[in-house]
């Protein structure tokens, strides 16, 4: 589905990603975990074209999308749920969703947009209840659901999520991640970027550990969870301290 080779990217003189190689296969949830500043968001921005890659290869469905515009990448089926939700606050929930269906609309599939809207209301009954409410008045968790649903309206082949748990209460985070798992079970492919490594690895099939712009570990999510280096650095667990108690 997505195959990245030796991707280099950054801002101005600053190189953030150094030769990152990774992939996402159809139907899997892949989590990229790493500390603040490791390059996680830069990676997603570079994939969807918001940031130009300096070097390397980004193949999406076997097509090199490195030089394509963000719109074209979205049309190819790569949707992003941005960090901090970024819902359109002064618009209603329904309007937000319809905007998410813009790709379908441009394909003159208005009927499909209507059908997708119904499907989103089915998937997220809460959004149906609040469809006429302004998005800005929703709670953080509800806004996150809306941001996910909005991305799904484009019928993406790959959904990329940037820190969906950010600033949300633990119970809400659980709810969000349950939804991510459900998306995968329904055949979607998800690339998840998270600081909350425990939650991200708990739902993921595979994961990568990003450190100062380099991937230092790749593996099954359960293996990464069992890796003590990962536990110490990203799960805030010092096993040696624990055993001393």
């Amino acid at each position, binding site marked *: 589905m997505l*195959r990245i*080779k*030796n991707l280099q990217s950054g801002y101005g003189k600053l190189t953030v990603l*150094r*030769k990152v*190689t*990774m*992939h996402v*296969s159809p139907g899997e949830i892949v989590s990229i975990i790493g500390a603040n500043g490791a390059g996680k968001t830069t990676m997603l921005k570079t994939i969807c074209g918001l940031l130009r890659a300096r070097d390397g290869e980004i193949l999406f469905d076997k097509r090199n999308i490195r030089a394509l515009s963000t719109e074209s990448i979205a049309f190819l089926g790569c949707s992003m749920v941005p960090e901090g939700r970024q819902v359109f606050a002064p618009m209603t929930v329904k309007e937000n969703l319809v905007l998410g269906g813009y790709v379908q609309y441009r394909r003159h599939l208005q009927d499909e947009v209507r059908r997708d809207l119904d499907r989103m209301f089915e998937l997220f009954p809460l959004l149906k209840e609040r469809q006429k409410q302004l998005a800005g008045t929703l709670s953080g968790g509800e806004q996150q659901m809306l941001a996910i649903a909005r991305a799904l309206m484009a019928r993406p082949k790959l959904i990329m999520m940037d820190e969906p748990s950010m600033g949300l209460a633990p119970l809400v985070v659980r709810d969000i991640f349950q939804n991510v798992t459900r998306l995968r079970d329904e055949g979607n492919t998800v690339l998840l970027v998270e600081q909350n490594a425990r939650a991200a690895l708990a739902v993921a099939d595979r994961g*990568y550990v990003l*450190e100062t712009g*380099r*991937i*230092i*570990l*790749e*593996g099954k999510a359960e*293996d990464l969870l*069992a*890796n*003590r*280096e990962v536990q110490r650095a990203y799960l805030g667990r010092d096993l*040696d301290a624990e055993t001393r108690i």
Partner: protein
Amino acid sequence: MYWEPEYETMKRDELQQLQLERLQATLHRVYMNVPFYRKKFDELGIDPDGFTSLSDLRNLPFTSKGDLMDNYPYGLFAVPLREVVRIHASSGTTGMSTVVGYTKNDIKTWSNLVARILTEGGITKDDVVQIAFGYGLFTGGFGLHYGAERIGASVIPISSGNTRRQVKIMQDFKTTALVCTPSYALLIADAISETGINVNSLSLKYGLFGAEPWSEGMRQEIQERLKIVATDNYGLSEVMGPGVAGECLERKGLHINEDHFLVEVIHPQTLEPLPPGEIGELVITTLTKEAFPVIRFRTRDLTRIITGPCPCGRTLVKMGKVMGRTDDMLIIKGVNVFPSQIESVLFAIEGTEPHYQIIVDRKGALDEVTVLVEVSEAIFFDEMKKQRELIDLITRKLTSELGISVGVKVVEKKTLERFEGKAKRVIDKRRL
């Protein structure tokens, strides 16, 4: 039957992508965590960020058995000792032993890869697996044990030795699969015939043999005498232990677990990578090891890479049966001779027993090779004419195979030393 079809039958381009990801991650980890590699890379001006394709591997320095010994015991570990849950040492076929460590994840990976190899060799959860490899610092026993348990087979951890008891247990416990060195399998076969047990009355179906080079002739012999399907598997403790490669039931080479090990074959003298098909020294880079990763480790084992599709459906490339070790290679009168070449000649000749010894000596300035081979009692005692003919035949065949003349002596059955672990076939008196 596959254990992990998603990896064993992976498309080549997907596999190469995964290998590159894992190679880059491994290089970053060894550079960060192992002073030995950091120093070596810095000295050679190698930037771990500079690896953009698998073929860049050839720019990396080799790691030798000597490097491992120099860093004895823990110098090459990539994690602190408190994360290591197991320590093994190489069986020391040659020289001093080397020490290797495993994290929890390493043990899990190891079990899984051995489970793959056992599955390739025909083993399922319904099998009763008798593991007659030594348990202990040697990785053979534990490695196969974990793999068999992972599959869910019934494991008999009998370890090596006490051959009569092996046979009794094999009979009483209804063992369906035997795991040991090929030379020990023959010893067990001898013990079975001596006790007068009809092999057909045993439940034995499969045998997985490894830890030493063995010829196709020896395979035939083992298969016929034990009435089993015998497959070869390969591994070495410096890299992980068993589980690096194993034969499928086609028995035409050992599939390498390439998603975990990157292999190359190099010319043992020029050290240049060789194209597939050519025989040279196997070099392995680990891709997923946590505690003890190795970069371009020179195994000193001689083999070749076999490409092309396998009828079993696996896309993993194969390596040929190991022909010998670079340090087993005898240079006799300037000609390279491998014990395995001698073995395959002997096994193809009617009337010889599968036990032999090669003695190399120097008379004046000339190397002299004598092959001792056991023959059946009938030939040894009764029929001198037949004995003469047999010696002539062996001499002729060996001379044409090796390109040098060798002396042949026949000895009475059971006079040569037997081995429960790795066999020692060559006695080189030149060094003494």
